[in-house]
């Protein structure tokens, strides 16, 4: 069912909008020029829990250029059933520090921001709880975990199996909170024309944003248009609409002028989502040959008091390895913190750090090569459902990686292993991510000059999707790339799912191939295709991408500083659509995994209830200087049970397992096992 051998799919085509971006011609939401624009600055709450008693705006209103000070007492209303985080300025309740409690609208951003400091908010503060604890009595089992997985699963009697196992490894692993930190902050420009609203907004899917924002604002769908032509990164944080977009719409309505809102980097740490911290208890039982007899993965994590977001941290544990018994659980504490959300492979990323660290520890306990341990526990079918895998090439990735990385000479004994003034070691970890797609629709039209235009409300958040979709359309139409233009980033285009969950290319490509085939089959100038039926009719199967991550570290023997001297990722992701943008995504994901292993941590301030290191100097994302020899390759994988392109999503898999491979390498180098990230120098002063 895959499309015919291609001419351009797979080729390393340069980004179509690359020139626009590097020359600054590409316009992002906040850069859109309109006449008469005003600017809103946010006043964030300075308490983490309580009630607004009153807002004193006189001083701010007296600043020349200030148009309005909006708060619960005077802001335009939104729909009654809007969720708390999007119901901006609708309540006096404060649920987390930094929540929008007022906004100043002014002729310039500078005036708005200056006046925002003059707004005096009186609160009745209450005692807050903001620190996640394993023994929090308020922990409970949510109904589902993101997006709709079972909260708990059980297979056989793992407790009994652990008792009977020859080798048992049990340990607790933890990851801190992480903030997505895309380069472009969350920003919106709202322009009302009578009852019609155009919103230039930075998001991961204008169609999805359109549906949700129309509901919040109580607008008929045809009265709202969302334009998101270029987006400077999202990493999950722009998957759902953010309060910035709603605030822009309300402020523009209130002052009768177009209004721009951009979150500052500091505000992004409260308003635009993050990954929950996790506390993960792993128990593995194996026979003497390392064959798993029991896997138990119990997760504790947090959400806000206003929304239940339960990260699916243990889901990869349900399908990664064979075992006759298994249990996975998720427990949630609702704290006076901002609402966590999607971030860089939610679920798989923190969960696989724990599982793949535990597998490394088990391999050592069993005295076998960690690659061999994984091969011995390779399941024939999906362990949880018994369904066949559409393709599963974890073992092939591990073997190819071992060959390329030089694994056969590795000494599996834990360090310390001193070479000169560094401890040197290597590590490996497996990687996986689901291969899904969502219904989308596309329109293709032949123009008078013989070129084609494809229209779809897809999104390019920097991944290269605009380019990839053009390649897919060119092959499906059997015309050269230059004769196809793909219009995306506008809710007025045919409905499409969002850029998230590594589903963009699979979802949008299915719709585009469908429309192009239809046009070629039926003739005429135009064809429209909705993939809903095709996806619904899809045979149930376990569809996942797999990979293997290899790392070599040098740990400074005096200072504990970790240098990741080599990284190799080997991936099995079906057919690769664009060798250049795919490699970039893999390397980017691996770099984010390095960053997770060594750098990133959002530090909760228990006294004040906010994330303390709320800027890019305090929240460390890996710099270029941290990345040395890094390479990503992929194996030839043919999978006809996915979609017309034969492609699995590649947006997230390459962050999964990276942190474990580095932590495992640090252990191999030093003998020190780090079970809570990040691995900072002070942990390694041995």
């Amino acid at each position, binding site marked *: 069912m895959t499309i015919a051998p291609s001419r351009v799919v797979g080729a390393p085509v340069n980004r179509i909008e690359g020139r626009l971006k590097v020359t600054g011609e590409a316009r992002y939401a906040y850069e859109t020029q309109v006449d008469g624009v005003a600017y809103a600055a946010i006043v964030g709450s*300075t308490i983490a829990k309580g009630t607004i008693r009153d807002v004193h705006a006189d001083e701010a209103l007296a600043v020349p250029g200030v148009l309005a000070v909006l708060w619960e007492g005077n802001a335009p209303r939104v729909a009654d059933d809007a969720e708390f985080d999007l119901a901006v300025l609708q309540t006096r309740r404060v649920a987390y520090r930094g929540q929008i409690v007022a906004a100043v609208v002014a002729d310039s951003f*500078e005036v708005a*921001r*200056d006046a925002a*400091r003059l707004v005096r908010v009186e609160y009745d503060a209450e005692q807050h709880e903001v620190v996640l604890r394993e023994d929090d009595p308020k922990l409970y089992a949510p109904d589902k975990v993101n997006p709709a997985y079972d909260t708990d699963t059980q297979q056989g009697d793992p407790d009994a199996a652990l008792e009977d196992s020859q080798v048992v490894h049990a340990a607790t692993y933890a990851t801190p909170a992480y903030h997505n930190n895309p380069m472009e902050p969350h920003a919106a420009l709202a322009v009302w024309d009578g009852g019609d609203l155009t919103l230039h907004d930075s998001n991961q899917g204008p169609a999805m944003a359109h549906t949700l924002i129309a509901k919040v604002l109580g607008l008929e769908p045809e009265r709202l248009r969302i334009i998101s032509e270029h987006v400077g990164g999202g990493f999950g944080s722009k998957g759902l609409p953010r309060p910035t977009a709603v605030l822009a719409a309300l402020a523009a309505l209130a002052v009768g002028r177009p209004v721009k809102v951009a979150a500052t980097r500091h505000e992004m740490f409260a308003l635009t989502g993050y990954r929950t911290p996790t506390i993960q208890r792993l128990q593995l039982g194996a026979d003497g040959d390392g064959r798993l007899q029991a896997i138990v993965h119990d997760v504790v994590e947090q959400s806000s008091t206003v929304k239940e977001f339960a990260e699916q941290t243990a889901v990869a544990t349900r399908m990664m390895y064979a075992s006759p018994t298994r249990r996975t659980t998720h427990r949630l504490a609702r704290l006076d913190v901002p609402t966590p959300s999607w971030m860089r492979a939610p679920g798989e990323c923190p969960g696989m750090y724990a599982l793949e660290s535990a597998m490394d520890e088990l391999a050592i306990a069993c005295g076998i090569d960690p690659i061999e341990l994984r091969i011995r526990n390779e399941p024939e079918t999906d362990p949880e459902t018994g369904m066949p895998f559409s393709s599963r090439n974890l073992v092939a990735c591990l073997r190819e990686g071992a060959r390329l990385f030089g694994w056969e000479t590795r000494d599996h004994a834990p360090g310390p292993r001193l070479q000169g*003034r560094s401890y040197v070691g290597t590590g490996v970890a497996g990687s996986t991510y689901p291969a899904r797609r969502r219904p989308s629709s596309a329109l293709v039209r032949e123009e008078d000059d013989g070129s084609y235009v494809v229209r779809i409300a897809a999104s390019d958040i920097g991944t290269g999707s605009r380019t990839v979709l053009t390649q897919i359309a060119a092959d499906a139409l059997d015309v050269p790339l230059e004769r196809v233009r793909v219009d995306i980033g506008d809710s007025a285009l045919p409905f499409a799912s969002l850029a998230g969950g590594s589903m963009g290319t699979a979802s949008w490509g299915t719709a585009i191939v469908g429309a192009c085939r239809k046009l070629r089959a039926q003739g005429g100038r135009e064809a429209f295709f909705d993939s809903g039926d095709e996806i619904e009719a899809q045979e149930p199967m376990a569809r996942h991408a797999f990979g293997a991550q290899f790392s070599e570290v040098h740990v400074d023997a*005096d*200072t*504990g*500083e970790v*240098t990741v001297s080599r990284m190799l990722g080997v991936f099995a992701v079906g057919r690769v659509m664009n060798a250049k943008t795919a490699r970039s995504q893999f390397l980017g994901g691996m770099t984010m995994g390095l960053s997770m292993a*060594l*750098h990133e941590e959002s*530090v909760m*301030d*228990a*006294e*004040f209830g906010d994330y*303390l*290191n*709320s800027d890019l*100097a*305090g929240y*460390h994302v*890996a*710099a*270029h*200087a*941290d990345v040395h020899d890094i390479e990503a390759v992929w194996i030839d994988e043919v999978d006809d049970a996915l979609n017309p392109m034969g492609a699995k999503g590649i947006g997230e898999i390459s962050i999964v397992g990276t942190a474990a491979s580095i932590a495992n390498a640090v252990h191999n180098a030093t003998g020190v096992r780090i079970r809570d990230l990040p691995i*900072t*120098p*002070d942990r390694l*002063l041995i």
Partner: protein
Amino acid sequence: MRPFTYERPTDAASAVALLGDAGPAARYLGGGTNLVDLMKLGVESPDVLVDVTRLPHDRIEELDGGGLRIGAAVRNSDLAADRRVREAYPVLAQSVLAGASGQLRNMATVGGNLLQRTRCAYFTDVTKACNKREGGTGCPARAGHHRNHAILGHSEACVATHPSDMAVALAALGATVHVEGHDGPRTIPMPGLHRLPGDEPQRDTELRPGELVTAVELPALELARRSAYRKVRERASFAFALVSVAAALDVRDGVVEDCRIALGAVAHVPWRALRTEEALRGRPATEAAFGEAADAELAAADPLPENAFKVPLARRVIVRTLEELSR
């Protein structure tokens, strides 16, 4: 940010006069890499900015009898790239390159680097108490997060550190800071420019109101040719030090003839390790002697719960740096 007026004089006397006329809410502006950030955050709200980057302080000149005079407006990038600096004072070039990022170093000036403020996250958040920002309001860092705060010379009122790398090298080299004020020019020897917090942490330096840094002079110092800066950090670029060491060492026949050592990220000031220096002079250049000398300085350390690691880390970095210089 609050509206302000902007002046751009071309000589030091005018700059000093402009600032004096403007009163206490006026600031000199160098590269702006710290001051402008603080203005955006509301930590600084000057009425007047006096831009001093057009003053004739942008050159590095050789002094009669050796040494270098570095204008206060010299950009960090130019300082680190200067051949005379790299050859005669490698510790200084290395310290500058260890700081910030390429873009920031292209903007930042020598004077501004010396006068940058602490990066304590409580100091930079105007919604929280901070004795340094507003005397008498309290210090949440002591009971809160202080992983990268001081282990030496701190007070009940303030546990912040000075963030500069360059200043640590200048403290080790015994540089002289030239300033110009209403009462004329004067000089301040490093590390004496910066002060410990005591009960007045709002004051970072010994500068008098309105004084302008015009230059830094490096003494002729033969042992500085054998010098190095080692910064321990959590990220390979654009990260402040956990601990840093600036050291110069002269070893003859296996014996330490002379040395200069300063520590960064351990105190409110670039910390000249005089006790270490004293303990080393005349001693054999061995790892054991380096360790004992480090201990002599660090005996006074009074770490907080989150930064106790800095004491052993500082010892290790001192020993390693001296050991490498002695080879």
